[in-house]
């Protein structure tokens, strides 16, 4: 009887702890990603668009440690919270950031399903590239009258490579340091 009660309580406890734990971890990742996005925003850049994109590490971590939906939640919520803090909520800047982050999360999820053995660098670089590509597409849709904006694509791809590798290394460290 006692064993049965302990098993039931233990099962329920694990279930609640599991759900709560996942929710708490998602919330921590959202908060960390939003903070990183806000902090990174005013940092000086050597090249246009060249920023580490460390917030994307939280999305990648959520994808690997939790689930695709958690990764998408991190992407959606962190861009909205960061935009709220930076005073750009629902502005074009927010929409561009939102499109980039969610596209990166979706693309990394798809790539991971297509190539389950893909390394962190591939996932991260691909995410960074799709992030830039989606941002350019939104800018094209909202602002540009001609297609010449796509001439920036070469620069954006080159920028995606180092930033993707940095994000991959940060994600690996996060995975290594957390149980």
């Amino acid at each position, binding site marked *: 009887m006692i064993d049965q009660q302990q098993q039931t309580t233990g099962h329920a406890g694990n279930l609640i702890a599991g759900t709560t734990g996942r929710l708490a971890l998602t919330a921590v990742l959202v908060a960390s990603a939003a903070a990183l996005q806000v902090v990174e925003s005013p940092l000086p850049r050597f090249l*246009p668009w060249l920023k580490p994109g460390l917030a994307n590490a939280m999305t990648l971590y959520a994808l690997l440690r939790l689930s695709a939906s958690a990764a998408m939640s991190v992407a959606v919520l962190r861009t909205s919270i960061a935009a709220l803090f930076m005073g750009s909520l629902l502005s074009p800047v927010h929409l561009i950031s939102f499109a980039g982050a969610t596209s990166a999360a979706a693309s990394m999820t798809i790539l991971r399903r297509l190539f389950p053995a893909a390394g962190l660098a591939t996932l991260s*670089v691909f995410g960074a590239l799709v992030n830039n590509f989606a941002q350019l597409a939104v800018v094209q849709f909202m602002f540009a009258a001609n297609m010449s904006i796509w001439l920036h694509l070469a620069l954006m791809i080159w920028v995606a490579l180092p930033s993707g590798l940095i994000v991959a290394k940060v994600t690996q460290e996060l995975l290594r*340091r957390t149980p």
Partner: protein
Amino acid sequence: MNDNLPPIFAGKHDWLILLVLLALSFLAWAAHEHGSHSSFSGACRVRILTEPPQEMLFSGPQAQPVEVRGRTGPAVIEWGSDRKIRISSSSCPCKTCVNMGWTNSSSLICVPNGVVVEPMIAGDQQVDAVTR
């Protein structure tokens, strides 16, 4: 510590995908170089996406930098001696448009400030400056 980690590079798929990306970047760079050799003479269209939106057409390089007022404040457009154009300063917070530097082919877009500078090839415009 968690020692069961996914690797940074896992195998041949990783290198294949990265090689495809590098090939894409080379193609994009080639397209950029091809676009840079267009017959840009300094003519450009400047759109300011405020309410109401404004549009300015310049048929050639201007001797003095032109200041326009966007959503967040002034932005300065400058023509160089080598038939290139840039946004030399802007009141936007991120300064991505300024960091884009000189161009003679691709558009310069300042999203926060709502300023769009579009280089035009020679012969597209016959006017000095029009504002509407």
